[in-house]
């Protein structure tokens, strides 16, 4: 037999093997970044992590959870971190998520930055308190036809410390056609005094991955991963009148805020106006609780408004869009002399409209705080 039958495959195999070896040697040399030191907030914490991986994962390995809704794929833009060391120019994947000011201040997406050298970074202090919990779903309640109240019990021995108004990330496991675990942020509606639970109000969004999971698949007793707390939506410590506006599951942070005030006995300390906008009566919830607070506390005013009340609703309260109702109250009822702070939580459309009403009524944009659904 001709030797060529051995030589030809051997030659191709040999060349391929040699090239493969070269590639893996190059990989070993070139992609070996060793151990990398990350200095967080000027020495507040120092981590030693394995180089070569994205910063987001390097940090979460050591218990620092940067908010991320997409799990490091660079599609949510949440995992922003200020990087003081030079880590090269902005990636094309980062640009769409950063404002001009953030770019100037070296804000980067931590999921897009590969750990290559020692770094100095800055993150908001509260991220040190962010933890990861494997919770058990204790109770699911339908509060309206499309909003579920989901109560998660933290594992034994674990506690959560947060400020009312903050949010947590809720992870839906893979289901149906969704191949990856998916995280979404929801405001926590439970009071900070309950350190053993977190509660979310989750409204069904058509086509939503996590809301779809919660509404169609989630069962009591199931285990769900929750990461938190995040966010800076919280009540400012002043004695200005609070003008709160919410719609739908935007109720969540306010439920937590009011319950926190009740727990601390401060609910009556300042004037609070709580406007809640809904379409018809089947979209409003916690009515009894809020009416009761209104009755028992001189300074707490609850104003639910329906834009399309149905005949069977027997609605006697204000009707019309929440913006119209808010405008009327700001002009005629709420004291013009005392300063005001705006607190808004709801859909981007509603928020923008309400902010316009507030600024038209002489409220400064610096005094309007909001939590926009994204």
């Amino acid at each position: 037999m001709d030797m060529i039958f051995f030589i030809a495959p051997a030659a191709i195999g040999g060349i391929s093997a040699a090239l493969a070896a070269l590639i893996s040697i190059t990989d070993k040399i070139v992609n070996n970044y060793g151990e990398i030191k990350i200095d967080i907030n000027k020495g507040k914490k120092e981590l030693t992590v394995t180089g070569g991986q994205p910063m987001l994962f390097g940090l979460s390995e050591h218990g620092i959870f940067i908010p991320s809704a997409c799990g490091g794929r660079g599609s949510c833009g949440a995992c922003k971190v200020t990087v003081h060391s030079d880590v090269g120019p902005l990636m094309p994947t980062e640009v769409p998520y950063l404002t001009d000011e953030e770019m100037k201040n070296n804000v980067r997406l931590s999921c897009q930055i590969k750990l290559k050298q020692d770094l100095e970074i800055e993150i908001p202090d509260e991220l040190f308190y962010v933890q990861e919990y494997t919770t058990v779903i204790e109770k699911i309640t339908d509060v309206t036809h499309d909003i579920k109240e989901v109560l998660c019990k933290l594992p034994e021995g674990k506690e959560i410390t947060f400020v009312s108004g903050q949010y947590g990330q809720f992870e839906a496991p893979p289901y149906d056609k969704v191949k990856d675990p998916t995280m979404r942020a929801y405001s926590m509606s439970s009071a900070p005094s309950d350190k053993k639970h977190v509660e979310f109000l989750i409204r069904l969004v058509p086509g939503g991955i996590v809301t779809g999971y919660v509404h169609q698949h989630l069962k009591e007793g199931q285990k769900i991963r929750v990461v938190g707390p995040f966010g800076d939506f919280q009540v400012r410590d002043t004695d200005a009148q609070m003008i709160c506006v919410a719609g739908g599951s935007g109720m969540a942070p306010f439920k937590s805020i009011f319950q926190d005030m009740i727990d601390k006995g401060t609910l009556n300390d300042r004037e609070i106006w709580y406007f809640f906008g809904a379409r018809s009566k089947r979209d409003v919830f916690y009515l009894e609780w809020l009416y009761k607070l209104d009755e028992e506390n001189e300074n707490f005013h609850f104003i639910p408004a329906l834009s399309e009340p149905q005949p069977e609703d027997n609605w006697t309260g204000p009707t019309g869009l929440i913006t119209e109702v808010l405008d009327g109250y700001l002009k005629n009822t709420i004291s013009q002399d005392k300063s005001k702070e705006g607190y808004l939580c709801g859909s981007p459309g509603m928020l923008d409209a309400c902010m316009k009403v507030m600024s038209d009524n002489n409220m400064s944009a610096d005094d309007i705080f909001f939590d926009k659904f994204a």
Partner: protein
Amino acid sequence: MNATQLINPFSLFFASIITSNILLANFLGMCSFISISKDMKSSNGLGLAVTVVLTVTTGINWAILNYVLIPLNLEYLRFIVFIISIAAAVQMLEMIIDRVSQALYLSLGIFLPLITVNCAILGVSLFMEIRGYTFVQSLVYGLGSGLGWWLAIMLLSAIRKKTDKSKIAPGLQGPGITVITIGFMAMAFIGFSGMLAVQ
């Protein structure tokens, strides 16, 4: 030593850039040439990437050809072997560039891996084999061809910047007018052909 190997590398270098431009004389590497040339910045990045990869792979393939394939009488395996080595070279280059210069890595972006399937790269290695270049000739021929490709795509993207703003019959807009433009460019370059010998 054959006649081709007597060609001065210096003249081979200029020949491969202008009179025997790999793109406009041999029409190799057309797909990325047409699709990328609509954006000047990307054209520049791709031109640079093609130049680097061409130079490196022509050198590697010359060594494989002369030290492995020819001694073993396996020249007929050159297609598959060249493709393997091009893919491997691109892979290694990508890793090295990522480590050495993040800025360059970012500006090349997706073009670097795409070059693996650019026919100009394989074409240059095959010409090198057919014409029996020496090692030095192969290197300058690779480098020159890359620079020629780079020049051609920059010229085309500059012209396309103009034609984008011109009135063009609807049926000819986009790729249609581009191919006609390339034809004119090729004619201009072919006017030089034969001035410098490449084989």
